[in-house]
């Protein structure tokens, strides 16, 4: 793995106090928060900042990181000693992230949880594994049809000798039909392993949609721009429109303008309460690129006496 300089990421000296680290972190979190930042890699940057603070903001983790990182340079190939970390006891962040340098680094170290399900009673320590949170990206058509997606996670696991090691786990996840952005899928028992025979935690996957060049999504509602000719818009027409659930015949009402919305009830995302599909008409002018086309435009100009700027007093 590559060594990551968390001090550099937070822009602080190695001698920085806890308060200075916290201040630097807060400033960066505000600067790169994906909801407000214009930075194109804001999400990635936020992830990196959080990872760095997760370590440097914790006295124990910071001490361990300092011990390991002595003499290391950012980007340098790095491998921790085999039994390194046995004197440390860390809580885990709970987020699954294949690129998380820290989760690799500390995978073989015992984890401490929030509560002991079963606790320390009876002499044997038994604890439920922590839940893991991750995201899964799907296409709109997956929400219409359901799909299977393969995801890879790097999770800690106890080897036969009782040491914690990281293992790449590949899961083939069935995405049910009708999911919407932000919904959570729970995969029971796929989180961190339990300790002392305790049950494993769960894996939560937040559903995210890949950007689609044709469709836009808002909850269960889907929006699609549909180009129409001026005569289809003016005279009305029956047109064939490709939609996420297949081509449909749609009636364009006469006298339509660009921006007119046609609602196809129940043709949005097929959730328990199916959404609607909105077709937004986009009147497209044919180019006046031939003599005949120019004659037709000239005839319209002459015969229609149409002033689109009448309402603005022109």
């Amino acid at each position, binding site marked *: 793995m590559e060594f990551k300089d968390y001090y550099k990421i937070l822009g602080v000296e190695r001698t920085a106090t806890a308060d200075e680290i916290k201040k630097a*972190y807060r400033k960066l979190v505000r600067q790169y928060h994906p909801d407000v930042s214009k930075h194109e890699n804001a999400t990635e940057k936020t992830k990196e900042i959080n990872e760095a603070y997760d370590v440097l903001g914790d006295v124990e983790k910071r001490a361990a990181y300092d011990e390991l990182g002595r003499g290391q340079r950012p980007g340098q190939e790095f491998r921790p000693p085999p039994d390194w970390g046995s004197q440390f006891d860390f809580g885990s962040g709970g987020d699954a992230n294949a690129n998380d340098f820290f989760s690799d680094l500390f995978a073989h170290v015992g984890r401490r949880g929030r509560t002991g399900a079963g606790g320390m009673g009876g002499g044997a320590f038994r604890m439920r594994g922590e839940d893991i949170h991750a995201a899964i990206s799907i296409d709109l058509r997956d929400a219409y049809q359901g799909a*299977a997606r393969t995801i890879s996670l790097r999770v800690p696991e106890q080897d036969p000798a009782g040491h914690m090691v990281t293992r790449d786990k*590949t899961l*083939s996840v069935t995405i049910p039909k009708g999911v919407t952005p932000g919904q959570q899928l729970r995969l029971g028992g796929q989180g961190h392993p339990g300790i002392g025979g305790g049950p494993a935690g*769960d894996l*939560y996957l937040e559903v995210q949609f890949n950007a689609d060049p044709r469709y836009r999504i808002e909850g269960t509602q889907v929006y699609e721009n549909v180009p129409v000719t001026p005569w289809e818009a003016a005279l009305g027409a029956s047109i064939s429109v490709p939609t996420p659930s297949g081509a449909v015949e749609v009636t364009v009402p006469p006298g339509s303008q660009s921006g007119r919305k046609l609602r196809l009830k129940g043709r949005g995302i097929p959730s328990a309460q199916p959404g609607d599909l909105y077709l937004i008409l986009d009147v497209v002018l044919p180019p006046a690129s031939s003599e005949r086309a120019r004659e037709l435009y000239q005839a319209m100009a002459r015969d229609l006496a149409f002033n689109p700027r009448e309402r603005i007093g022109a």
Partner: protein
Amino acid sequence: MVQQHSLTGVLLDDVALTLEELARACDVEPDWVVRHVHAGVLGSQDVVSVQVTSWRFRSMDLQRARRLLSVERDFDANEDLAGLVVDMADEIRRLRARMHVLGVKLP
């Protein structure tokens, strides 16, 4: 070593989380959830009138709880302030989604 498992996810909107499960998923004590529900910043306010053991939480509650927790931890904020920040961020997201739907591009 790579192992492959085939699994079917359960949508939290079909099988909701209990108070304990939500707390565990957020790595907090159940009291944290109770306090935030009573403060009116988490969960449907209909749940307040029913027994705590009957409280149920769905996808958006889990997402919101994790965001509240993140604001509280990052900025030492209390639940009211965290609730306000998350509400404002939600409003920004909603307006951006609306603009995207209407084909309006942000400068």
